[in-house]
């Protein structure tokens, strides 16, 4: 009987751990303005802001995102890594990460590039 309780305890402990991990890793989908005030990890979607030339700063790839409906709103993104494939052809870029309030830029851990090409859907 003891072993049974051990098993149930193990499962309950795992579920608690899973709940905690979930709350840690959930990243809501927000607009640029909301991203700037959010304290946790978020996903921001936008267009490439053509006024800033994407470039490398040390090991970071730096570019600017632009809100689709309102091009005035922009967000400077630093991605730790190299320029992703098909970045130049992207019509949408999704940056996953967190806004650094003191340094005024968005630190991205991951970039999703949405391309108008075949596998990613037509038109």
């Amino acid at each position, binding site marked *: 009987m003891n*072993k049974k309780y051990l*098993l149930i305890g193990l499962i309950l402990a*795992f579920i608690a*751990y*899973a709940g905690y*991990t*979930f709350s*840690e*890793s*959930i*990243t*809501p*989908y927000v607009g640029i303005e909301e991203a700037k005030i959010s304290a946790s*990890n978020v*996903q921001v*979607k936008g267009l490439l802001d053509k006024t800033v030339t994407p470039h*490398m700063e040390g*090991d970071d790839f730096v570019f600017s995102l632009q809100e689709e409906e309102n091009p005035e709103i922009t967000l400077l993104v630093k991605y730790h*890594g*190299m*320029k*992703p*494939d*098909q970045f*130049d052809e992207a019509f*949408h870029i*999704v940056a*996953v990460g967190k806004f650094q309030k003191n340094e005024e830029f968005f630190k991205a*851990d*991951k970039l*999703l*590039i*949405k391309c108008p*090409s*075949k*596998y*990613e*859907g*037509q*038109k």
Partner: protein
Amino acid sequence: MCGNLLLGLGLFASLSGSIILFCGADKKAPFDKLIKIAVLISAVAVSFSSAYLMYLIFSNNFEFEYVASYSSTDLPFIYKVSAFWAGQQGSFLLWILIHALAGVILYKNNSFSGKGLGVYLLVESLLIIMTLGKSPFEPAEVVGVDGIGLNPLLQDPWMAIHPPVVFIGYALLAVPFSLGMGALLDDLDSREWLETSRKWTLMAWGFLGAGIFIGGYWAYKVLGWGGYWGWDPVENSSLVPWLLAGIYLHLIKITKIRKTAIATLHLAGVFTYSAVIYGTFLTRSGILGDFSVHSFSGTTIGLMLAVVNGVLLLAGLFLLTVKMKKLPQGKLYDTFSTREFIVLLGMLTLMFISLVVFLGMSMPLLTQLAGKAAAVDTGFYEKLCTPLAVMLMITMFLASWYGYGRENVIVVTDGMKSVIIAVALGVVSTTWAGVTSPFAIALGAVSAAAAMATWQAYKKKTISTGGMIAHLGVSLGLLAMVLSGSGSKAVSQEIAQNEEISALGYNITYKGQEIFSEADYKEYIYEVNGSEVKALTKLRKNGEDAAREPAIYRGLLGDVYIAPSPAKFDNIIEMALKFGKMDMDEQFGYRYEGVEMEPDSENPVQTIITAKISITDGTDIDTVYPVITATETGATSKPIDIMQGKKQLRLTGVSADQKSVRVEVLPSREEIAAITVRASISTKPFIWLLWLSTVMVTAGCLWATKK
């Protein structure tokens, strides 16, 4: 039209067949003959429809939207074949083709009870309805002489075979589902259908697994996918049915020992096939558009898939509830010290893994329904799956220790010694590879122990040969994931041409770029410890990067993975040249002397625009003829050498009155080849063990079907 008509015929045949079977009229003449005709006609109709699509692709019939979108006249043979399943519509057609053909074999072998075949044909009808909902035989809105062609990224032999292998897996998973539903409807005893189900599920599992592995291997050797596994929804949506089918396979074995497990088996069967449809729904409906790197965009097909998914799941669960009382009842195991208990515990763990992946990939959908869309990051999967994988390996290890039905410790002291050695090997190799996370080291150690215990069980003949190979594959695969993943180290570094650097314990020299303008690709050449490796970049028609592959140095201790960053030279000079006038850059003078436009004789929609431009450095004059190929939608042009290759020039536009042209002057090929390139360099310790283990899983699985 012809293709859709054939599909309609297939639908009619499979639907009427299934109605006859559900009415239970299949034993009486003439209905028994009609069933045979229905099965055959649906297969023949779908085959002809597929052959027709293939014919359309090969005859370059761009009147069809699908052909125009995924094929082009210059596509090589193998990629024309793969254009068949490059898009969603074609891949659905391939799915029903496999489903229908497997149906003929199943019918010939008399594998189904009456209603089982009914369920199978009903599923076939639903699949055909979905294909008709978004058919590959739609006419194109604008008919061109050439198609858009297959995405260069997908022009890879591995990518050509990946979709069909996955779809064989998906299609064949309908067999255990139909067998199970048929058994419930016809009140069959498990002995009558379990063996058939086992064989077909093994086959489906083997193919689905192989498809996933091929996709992973391809993702590893191209850039932009983030390695062999990125927890992307598209990847996850094929992983969940694979995991669930794995549970189903183990439950078949348990049910053979103890009939009381039959209800759990049916439950697993319903959820496995639902997961296939659900995954397709999630990735094909477009609702994940903003969350996945490669989901297809949205169409009405999403709603249909959701309905089909709901119907199959609810009908399956309803049927199981109704028939529950007729199924054998009782305990699933006697004591904890039996193999059946440990295997069930392992399957519970596997179910938790499936649940984690399922919840993770569904989160955008679930949160969207709740109001505010959100996704989980990849850390969610890794943090939860690692402890679960440790648990899974512990159960695999313990299960090898015990026999079915009785308390029976099978491994004696010499076995114990080898297990201790395996654990030590696991700990030493992971630590050597640089793994620091205790969870990851623990996973490496228990995986090694599980592999050794599996081998011991095989020596004691308590596991079959196929089972042994597949289980060794799974445990060694997890060990290899720890070694190559958690043990991977990366640096990013700028390397000048012919410079030798020392990184991560390897001597790496960058030899420069080589550009093959005729073959439409360029290579970045590196030397790792003296062996030459090349990173390939496929180019678009206008010379831009289309798809990139890293340079991979393969060694016994692991791979070195070099990903050069696309070098953009900033010294491109754009000039507008006026007719008859001389324009200068810092080196040469350029004069535009005329332009000719003529339709392309081989391809009348294209216009070939040839400009005549003279270039001089003061003494020599070089007259060149750069070309733009223009269609209604756009234009492409290639750079050409000028002044004996000292620079390159590209024609980018001609004014409407032909009074001026725009050109780009680029550095020479040698200069481009010598540019310092930043590269990300990483190690993948023992990654070959991962590839080997995937082969073992597939081979073991297919081997086991022989019995």
